[in-house]
């Protein structure tokens, strides 16, 4: 317990210290990492933990971002309300998409969800009355209590806490019944069903959760990039999210943060390599699949850390 309090205090102190130490541009990057890791977290849940391969993540991101932006532009729904509202709707779409797992699995599920991404992207291109078509649309500014947030620092105070909260919720759920059932489904569907688990509902819920996180991420991403166009949400982008998840560690929520940090910062360090960036990512992905299938997160022994934390908790309960 004590260790937990120390970690929390350290975390909060760091949260307030960082804006003092870093330039606005860096804070913007941190926001980008937070948002992307939220999107990748969705993939960690559905593909990593529940074992249902999904190439639909960028479609959920698109629906979340466009949805909130369209509500704000056409109906004047403020983004702080529109983003969660749309995310709930997108989660429903995700649930319905997840019900498909009754009929398709494995490679076919990958292809079907990829088709979903392609369809959403096409719809965005062709519904130009509301989406601005291929040219895209500007995102209205995010206003809270009459103040519009736009600088890296302002957005940092909005985005990082939301991300942290959602990560805590996901990590907690992953360490309770829900996470256990998802993992059970990944490891043996037939046994999970025999243990009384309605696997179809759980698989669909995993998709709903990934859609929800993708849509929240999409809404926040829209605020960050201030302009949406369909090219940002294609199949390439969905594969990019999957690559981040694999490099970070598909089974670990922390892996989403680690992977995203690498993918956001690496291009900075490889400025001179810019043309070969795709190649670098490709080789990295291949390397991880072959050598470290559980990703960067597996290099840090999270299980061991957990044991230390839990042990200290158990002892403090006992005393």
């Amino acid at each position: 317990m004590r260790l937990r309090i120390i970690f929390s205090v350290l975390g909060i102190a760091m949260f307030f210290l960082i804006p003092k130490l870093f330039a606005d541009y860096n804070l913007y990057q941190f926001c980008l990492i937070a948002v992307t890791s939220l999107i990748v977290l969705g993939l960690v849940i559905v593909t990593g933990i529940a074992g249902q391969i999904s190439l639909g993540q960028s479609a959920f991101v698109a629906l979340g971002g466009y949805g909130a932006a369209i509500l704000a532009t056409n109906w004047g729904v403020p983004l702080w309300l529109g983003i969660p509202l749309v995310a709930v709707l997108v989660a429903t779409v995700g649930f319905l998409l997840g019900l498909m797992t009754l009929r398709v699995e494995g490679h076919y599920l990958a292809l079907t969800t990829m088709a979903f991404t392609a369809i959403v992207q096409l719809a965005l291109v062709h519904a130009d009355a509301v989406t601005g078509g291929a040219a895209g649309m500007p995102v209205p500014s995010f206003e809270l209590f009459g103040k519009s947030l736009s600088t890296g620092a302002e957005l940092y105070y909005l985005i990082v806490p939301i991300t942290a909260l959602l990560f805590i919720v996901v990590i907690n759920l992953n360490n309770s019944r829900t996470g256990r059932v998802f993992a059970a489904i990944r490891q043996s569907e037939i046994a999970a069903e025999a243990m009384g688990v309605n696997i179809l509902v759980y698989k669909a819920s995993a998709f709903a959760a990934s859609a929800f996180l993708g849509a929240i991420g999409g809404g926040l991403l829209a605020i960050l990039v201030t302009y949406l166009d369909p090219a940002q949400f294609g199949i390439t982008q969905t594969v990019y999210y999957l690559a981040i998840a694999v490099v970070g560690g598909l089974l670990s929520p922390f892996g989403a943060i680690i992977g995203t940090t690498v993918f956001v910062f690496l291009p900075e360090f490889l400025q001179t390599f810019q043309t070969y960036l795709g190649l670098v990512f490709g080789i990295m992905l291949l390397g991880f699949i072959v050598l470290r299938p559980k990703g960067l997160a597996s290099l840090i022994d999270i299980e061991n850390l957990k044991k230390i934390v839990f042990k200290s908790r158990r002892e403090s309960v006992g005393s």
Partner: protein
Amino acid sequence: MEANILGVNNVTVQFGGIIALSDVSLEVTPGTIHAVIGPNGAGKSTLLNVISGIYSATKGDVSFEGERLSGLAGHEINAKGVARTFQNTELFKEMTALENVKVGLDRFHACGVINSALHTKQWKKSDAEADEAARELLKLVGLGDDETSSAGILPFGKQRRLEIARALATRPKLLLLDEPAAGLRAAEVEDLIAILRELKTNQGLTILIIDHVMALVMAISDRISVLNFGHKIADGAPKEIRESAEVIKAYLGEKAADAYST
């Protein structure tokens, strides 16, 4: 006579042109251990898969405590009180032994998504209760010292027993065991016999067991049904089965049966 807990009524299962079970009926009395034996390919596993909802019967139906099970999904059948183990063990291999059991237990210790998401005091309490209940079950099958081991690295005999503990976690009234003794050493079979007897006498559980290992079947069964090529050829107390010419023929061939009867 007491009403049966499980009734298999004229079940036929057909896969394309292959008839795996043909017009099989059997009744299981509550509180007994009922064994189904038969040579390889006799349809024993098919029978278990029909009862647990993995396959559906082409004809006939299965009833449990007077309710029809046919047409229900596997998880619904489990919720009614029927749990099973698997012949080739279907453990959640990356999880610890304790977590495996908790998957079965969880629904009795649920405390809502919000409590789980925030790990509130209430969640901690119910999680600790689930841990305690899971430890009890592991102790019952003799795995008290293995709770933190990954299921996948446990020796085979222990994996089999972990499957039983996991099935018991769903609080069944009827336990279906698919060849629990296959591949076990003699000493492990003795342990298994002790566990099954304990479950029957002290927990009042009804058990339907499929196995080849006669040492086990003859030692614990109250009643035995014999399948051969999808047909039920005999049904009775262990002593009757041991002496049935029909059964000896199925297992050892016609000559052996003649030799035995003369």
